């Protein structure tokens, strides 16, 4: 690998070819990402051997096996994905452009968003798109979507319990419905229907409660009986002889599943196209303040000056808050999940059982994805336990006795920043410029689009949008809790 790529790039920069005015605008160098340190090596290359190829929105200079790519049409007209583009790339073997750029960290930004998960990326996207604020850095100590945004079980729904909650999550469902087109990235949202089973009269009462609140807020939910449940999910044992008979279910047709990685990547790509910078592998070490104002961020890649820091982390939200002395009632618990080998499709809806602490859906690939309630102890560990898989299996088989021969393939855990009322914390803090989008417990992924939109408005206007006003940090001190435990403790 020593030969062409690095040396060619170095040459391209060294000779200041007009086509390549700055390193940060280079999309990709064959064999080595643009901006990597080795690119500073200078080795002579004869420019007359260069060959320029031009496509719509992108061009390439080629010398031997070395290639340098760059976008020509700039931020306003990103590469479009479509069936036609698939065919064109298939025919021409023209490479796809990078989904997001890799650029050096700048010394100052208008806003720094910590956490390149769905919340951070959606906030950045809406800042750029809705408010024209593009001098924004999203920093993450890992990779895009590598935290809870890539560990959750990708269920989207809005059948919550409080009017504030239902309204908020419904906005998110609405944004999800349009997201593939909005981002030009197929996020594979499938509104397959969401069933929360009731095995006793008290949970049936809670289902009616949720259905009634949902209907009044305009969200499609209803309580259905065992026959209808059997029709929707034939593999469920709806006989009355079981240990936990199924008495009814809260049926929420708009609920469903989504491809979580696609959402993360789609937001990252779209935000990047609008000029937002995404910095992977950059850890926030400290947040500097003057008085009660944010001044900047100290990162593992250097210091950044910024008046605004948005905490969009999950799993470690309270640790970041500690850096500026903001106290939150967040306690972090692991939440485990597991996936099986694929089998042919047999389960269309998402099925949740609160009494049995389990929920299950089947992916397009045929795998069953399982989750449960959070682990009972506080921890930052993302390892799975054997007991979790044992309980999970016995509970799933109590619901669907026919599937005992399916094999569990992989188990993992995410971290849930739990709040006392099972609702998130969004909004301002006593430290000016330090904003929170945290405390997402077990319901963060489904909320990403709505919180991103609202948080961007808050950053841009300084005013808290009505949609998220109920979820402010001050509610814990003022006794205005938004109790969602009844709708969020198992069925995430």
């Amino acid at each position: 690998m020593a030969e062409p790529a690095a040396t060619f790039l170095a040459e391209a920069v060294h000779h200041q070819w007009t086509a390549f005015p700055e390193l940060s605008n280079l999309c990709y160098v064959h064999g080595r990402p643009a901006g990597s340190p080795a690119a500073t090596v200078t080795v002579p290359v004869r420019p007359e051997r260069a060959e320029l190829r031009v496509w719509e929105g992108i061009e390439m200079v080629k010398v031997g096996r070395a290639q340098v790519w760059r976008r020509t049409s700039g931020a306003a007209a990103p590469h479009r994905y479509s069936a036609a583009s698939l065919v064109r790339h298939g025919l021409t073997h023209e490479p796809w452009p990078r989904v997001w750029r890799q650029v050096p960290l700048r010394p100052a930004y208008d806003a720094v968003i910590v956490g390149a998960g769905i919340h951070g990326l959606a906030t950045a996207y809406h800042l750029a798109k809705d408010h024209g604020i593009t001098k924004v850095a999203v920093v993450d100590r890992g990779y895009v979507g590598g935290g809870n945004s890539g560990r959750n079980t990708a269920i989207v729904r809005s059948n919550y319990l409080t009017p504030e909650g239902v309204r908020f999550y419904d906005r998110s469902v609405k944004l999800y419905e349009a997201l593939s087109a909005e981002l030009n990235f197929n996020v594979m949202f499938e509104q397959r229907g969401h069933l929360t089973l009731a095995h006793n009269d008290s949970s049936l009462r809670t289902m009616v409660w949720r259905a009634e609140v949902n209907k009044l807020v305009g969200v499609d939910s209803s309580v259905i009986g065992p026959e209808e449940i059997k029709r929707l999910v034939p593999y469920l044992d709806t006989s009355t002889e079981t240990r936990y008979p199924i008495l009814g279910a809260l049926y929420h047709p708009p609920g469903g599943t989504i491809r979580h990685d696609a959402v993360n990547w789609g937001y990252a790509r779209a935000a990047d196209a609008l000029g937002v910078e995404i910095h992977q592998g950059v850890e926030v070490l400290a947040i500097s303040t003057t008085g009660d104002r944010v001044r900047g961020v100290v990162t593992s890649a250097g210091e950044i000056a910024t008046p605004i820091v948005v905490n969009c982390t999950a799993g470690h939200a309270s640790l970041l808050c500690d850096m500026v002395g903001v106290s939150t009632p967040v306690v972090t618990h692991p939440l485990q999940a597991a996936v099986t080998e694929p089998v042919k499709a047999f389960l269309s809806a998402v099925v949740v059982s609160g009494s049995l602490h389990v929920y299950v859906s089947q992916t397009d690939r045929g795998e069953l994805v399982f989750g449960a309630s959070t682990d009972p102890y506080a921890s930052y560990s993302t390892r799975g336990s054997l007991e979790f898989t044992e309980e999970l299996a016995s509970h799933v088989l109590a619901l669907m006795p026919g599937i005992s021969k399916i094999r569990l393939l992989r188990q993992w855990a995410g971290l849930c920043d739990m709040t006392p009322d099972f609702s998130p914390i969004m909004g301002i803090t006593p430290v000016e410029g330090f904003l929170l989008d945290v405390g997402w417990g077990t319901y963060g992924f489904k909320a990403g689009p709505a919180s991103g939109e609202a948080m961007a408005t808050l950053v841009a206007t300084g005013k808290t949008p009505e949609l998220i006003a109920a979820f402010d940090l001050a509610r814990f001190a003022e006794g205005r809790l938004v109790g969602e435990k009844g709708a969020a403790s198992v069925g995430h």
Partner: protein
Amino acid sequence: MRPVARRATPTSGRLGPRPGEVIDRARPLRFTFDGRPYLAYEGDTIVSALLAAGESVFSRSFKYHRPRGVLSATFFDPNCTVQVGEEPNVRGAHRRVRNGDVVSAQNVWPSLRYDVKAANQAVGRFLSAGFYYKTFIKPEPLWPAYQQVLKRFAAGGVVGADDPHGYYDHRYAHVDVVVAGGGPAGIAAALGAAEAGAAVLLVEEEPHLGGHLRYGGPEALRLLGELRQELADAKGIEVLTDSVATGRYDGNWIAVHQRSVPGATERLVKVRAGALVVAAGLIERPYVFAGNDLPGVMLSTAAARLVNLYAVRPGTRAVVLSANAEGDAVAALLAAAGVEVAATLDARRAETVVAARGHGHLSSVETSQGRVVEADLLVTATGWTAPTSLLNMAGVRPTYDEAAARFVVGAEPSPGVFATGGLVGDASPEGLVAHGRAVGARAAAAAGCGKGAVLPELSPGPHPALFRSTTHGFVDYSEDVSSKDVFQAAAEGYDSPELAKRYTTATMGPSQGKLELVNFLGVLAEATGRSIGELGTTTWRPPYAPVSLGALAGRPHEPVRYSPIQPYHEAMGAKPLVAAQWIRPDHYGDPDAEVRRVREAVGLIDVTPLGKLLLVGKDTPALLNQLYVNKWSALRVGAVRYGVMCAEDGVVFDDGVCGRLGEDRYLMSTTSSGAGAVWEWVERWLQTAGRHLDVYVTPLTTAYASINVAGPASRTLLSRLVEGVDLAPEAFPYMAVREGSVAGVERCVLWRIGFTGELSYELHVPAGYGLFVWESLLDAGSDLGVGPFGIEAQRIMRLEKGHLIVGQDTDGLTQALGAGLDWLVKLDKADFVGKPELVWQANREDYDRLVALVPTDERTVPPEASQLLGIDGDIVGRITSSRHSPTLRHPICLARLAHHLATPGTVVRIHLPDGRDVPARVAETLAAYDSEGVKLRA
């Protein structure tokens, strides 16, 4: 699209007897594959039997539906997954044939030989990595239809809704040392540990011990024979074959999945071990080149297994690509087995395969020297993958050894966790045995047995780094991911292992990356110009090998709790009610009649599930003062008091009564659903903030059967059976407790309390006498009109009386003052759990109140959870309890209501689930029946 031709002359077939073969030629078995009959020998895998019969295609690939044959001939062979009867995703290269097995190919339509979806190969260039993210975006209304098509491509077998569950077993084991892997190093480790006196569990994935010795040459078989003999003579070693250690959790808590076990479908063995030795061996790595997935292209270990274990000739004319001694040995083995070895390519001399060609089966191989060699078998030996999964689960991070071209670990990577064999390094079988023996002794020492041993040197030898040839081929067979896809992912910016893995789905399939991971990293390293060491790797997560849900679940362990009086309830045909762990009588046919019986005469209800805790010790009042919101210091012996517990946030947590039986003896009752939680709560306080308190807690919930005798005639009834207690109202007043005998049963506790609002007594009878006392009461009171009543009647009566049920009339945010408990909460107490929150609540007005509502339309009983609406249609509360009162003959409700509307007389709007709105009035008091409490005190 063309069918895979059935070859006139099969390329594979059965050889004469081999010295190490595991088949029993005297025991033929019959089975079918896709409807056609086949013969096998006992010991054959499904795939070895089919190969012996000349078949070479066992599956179609996930995305392109390419025909696939044997690759590794192990459990992890991604191409040999079949359906066996009702069981999906069976590993055909591992599963032994059983007589009568009905085997079918998966992921084919309409058949294995002629698969229409193979048309995907023609458009493969448009189906590159992540293609689905880039299309089907518009028009949006069509996406659900596209998605249904995508779902049809889901790989895997079929399960049925009514498939039988099977008998799955769980077992616990407590041993000093678990050895995962029964090859030479693993056997030796078990021997070394046992010699030191350790109890050892040796777990081997294959049906026989021996690892690669089993399919090695005569020397290997001789050594294996010696090891087996030594094992047979050793004491303290239990061997589990066809079993796999699937997970290592904290504290060497190890899961072992036994796939075949007499008398059960499968078994999960849960082992707590002093030390774990991982001797998983090495997995041979495929090589990436064009056509590397054609049937006829296989790993050298696969060829050796087929020839030596199953006496199957894998082809007739072979090309061997070898980078190591093992590969060279397989070339010789094939020649000796009658396979013509047409070419041997030495990868150490930069000779390699450029492409494998053929239609449906390998027919020729293009070499780097430009030759095209006709062949129906291509064997590759290009390197190894270290399956370090169990070690990763123990927090160990293997390092990538550039010279050896594989990940390696040390022999003692973590306290209590050891490794030996190929994971650590390369050596002769004797060298591996010596290392294994020493590691076993050291593991035993770590578990407290013996003094350990000196560790011989073991390190990996050099090996060329071979991942990909000059052409593109498959990196992940089970996911149909090619090296081109990995290059594309890197070019698009998915250039870290995790992102590229997620984008291409490489390593995410059923073989969990065991064959694919290092090639994936190697290709990604090539695509990004970095080294594997720089890239890092993805995380191996449990389980090591897939485990059936049945094995994880075991037998059902969801016990049902019944009261000792259950035989009576059943005999009376009571309607069962599932109440958490308990099954209780909801009613005996007519709840309204049961209510009338209690209101007018006397009834019995079985309240055994009520939680009961015996508290003994002089500091019990201090504990009660801390946990309840009211005061307990002045409770006299013989008195009972109602109490409510709140959590630290002031939210109502449980309620019940507590009585003082003697100087330092108290009996606390809890709600039925709160029995477990309150016990934990009490213990938690005693073990944290209350460690100085002299209180001992004993849960007695099921030690007593509990019977509530309620109704105006209850005293008369009891007077006929109770001895040793003066039942006169002055001697045994309301809210008092006595101990005495009932129907001759001694040491019963009698409480004069009542949830129904009538004169009533709660009897706690030693559980064994519960049914006897119940029937005695019925017999003794027949002239009084006594009869049973169920939960439903009790709920109606408590609602008439305005008694709340915690969790129904309160919710996760209801603090005590919002539950109508102002009269009970004593904020002047020095401290109690939840006090700061309740002090704060007392200074506010804005919390919801618990109110009684009377719908003005007497015919409408609003369903529980109906919402209450304000003038603007906003939600101002909800109905928490609602019944038609047979006593008052109108609907009665409890509701949570916004404070500004909670004044008696206010009319609110109930929004019914059917969409109608009905008005209701806020009542003066929660109790609609006997609000003065006269009857209770009678």
